[in-house]
């Protein structure tokens, strides 16, 4: 907490949600406190939320289906919402999606608030929708989400499987906001996590001042597409 750039730190509890407008020029570091966390995330342009994170545009602009340092997250309007500027994990999942009420009930059974208080079971989709509703967004605004700290392996046939042990205790990823980004998070388990136990993990968030984006920024240079993406994002603020 003594790091001069840290504005504040905050823990997101297992299965809990969080949202914030991450300002251009700040960064969000997400740390996996215990190892094995999953953070489902959605991103919107705060000023005009119909501009939102676009999974296909992000993947095809960078010819990748894994998110790590040097990769940026594109909106559907050709702009960069945020850049992955630090990553000790190496692979974050952009394709696996989120759980829903039926899936959680089938995998883990039921745990109501009345008996279980804040350990009652949550699911990704409902968690997104409740948090999105606080900002005036609804089911029509739901889109493909990112799963930080999780990895889904894909075979040549397209078969998908959850990669256990992807994120060690203390791993972190840092997102630099390139716009004012409404960030919606929850720590629900990954939908393909085969663990038979309901066992979401907490993460530690720290919101920081970010260094300005220089011409030789690694995210800008990682792909020629990203150079154009940064140009278009800078033009938005001119």
């Amino acid at each position, binding site marked *: 907490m003594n790091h001069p750039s840290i504005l504040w730190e905050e823990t997101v509890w297992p299965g809990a949600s969080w949202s914030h407008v991450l300002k251009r020029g700040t960064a969000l570091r997400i740390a996996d406190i215990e190892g094995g966390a999953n953070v489902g995330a959605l991103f919107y342009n705060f000023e005009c939320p*119909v501009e939102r994170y*676009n*999974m*296909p*545009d992000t*993947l*095809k*602009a960078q*010819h*990748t*289906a*894994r998110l790590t340092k040097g990769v940026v997250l*594109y909106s*559907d*309007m*050709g*702009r960069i919402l945020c850049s992955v500027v630090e990553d000790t994990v190496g*692979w974050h999942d952009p*394709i*696996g*999606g*989120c759980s*829903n009420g*039926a*899936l959680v009930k*089938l*995998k883990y059974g039921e745990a109501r608030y009345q008996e279980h208080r804040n350990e009652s079971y949550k699911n990704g*989709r409902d968690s997104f929708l409740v948090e999105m509703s606080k900002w005036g967004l*609804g*089911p*029509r*605004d*739901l*889109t*493909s*989400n990112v799963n930080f700290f999780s990895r889904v*392996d*894909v*075979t*040549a*046939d*397209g*078969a*998908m*499987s959850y990669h256990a042990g992807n994120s060690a205790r203390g791993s972190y990823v840092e997102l630099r906001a390139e716009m004012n980004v409404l960030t919606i998070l929850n720590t629900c388990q990954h*939908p*393909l996590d085969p663990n038979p136990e309901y066992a979401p993990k907490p993460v530690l968030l720290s919101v920081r001042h970010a260094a300005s984006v220089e011409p030789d920024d690694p995210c800008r240079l990682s792909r020629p*597409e990203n150079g*154009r*993406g940064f*140009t*278009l994002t800078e033009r938005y603020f001119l």
Partner: protein
Amino acid sequence: MSEAKTIESNLDPGSASYRHVIPAGEPWIYEIRRGQYFRIVDLHGNQAVDTLFYNLHDYADRYSAQDTIRSQANLYLTTGTRLISTAGTVLLTIVADTCGRHDTLGGACANESNMVRYAIEKRHMHACRSSFLKAVLEWDHGMTKRDIANNINFFMNVPVTPEGKLTFEDGISEAGRYVEMRAETDVLALISNCPQLNNPCNAYNPTPVEVLLWDAVIWDAPVKDAPEN
């Protein structure tokens, strides 16, 4: 890549209740009723058909690429794939496929994504998401860009490698190949017959496709996504 499996349909185009050719670069929007069979034919080969589906009675409940691939634990769409909505409704099931597999990660082209992917000067080039918007505005049922979700690309080949690389490969489709679906509930279909000229998804030459409908042949009980499958 393993050999794609292909399954033919026994439905006769001569008995279809609706036939329509979608010219290259044009959209198409149409209501499909539960039990109807819906076929898309790649008339000339290697033509990407960007497709969205909505629950006809609640447009907010719509095709979800992530729920569809997560439910079957496979990236590629082919015979047997259930196209699942954001609320877990099975919208349609693919019942025949002579192409072998279809993409749902590559999304639709847009003026803005073309600027990023190819050159800022390419903003003017016609793109799928403009076709989608034109279609829903003319449909005039209150749909907007909020309703343009991540789509299916029928006949498009976007392999993901075990190392997590995503590539756009030449199509595996050929002239006359088709994919056929059975509607499991009433749906609204929205297609952009892709105008992209900057990559091989249309073999650099967008061409027309045909859509056909057959009236209900078999009636099943309404299907909900069963996550255990």
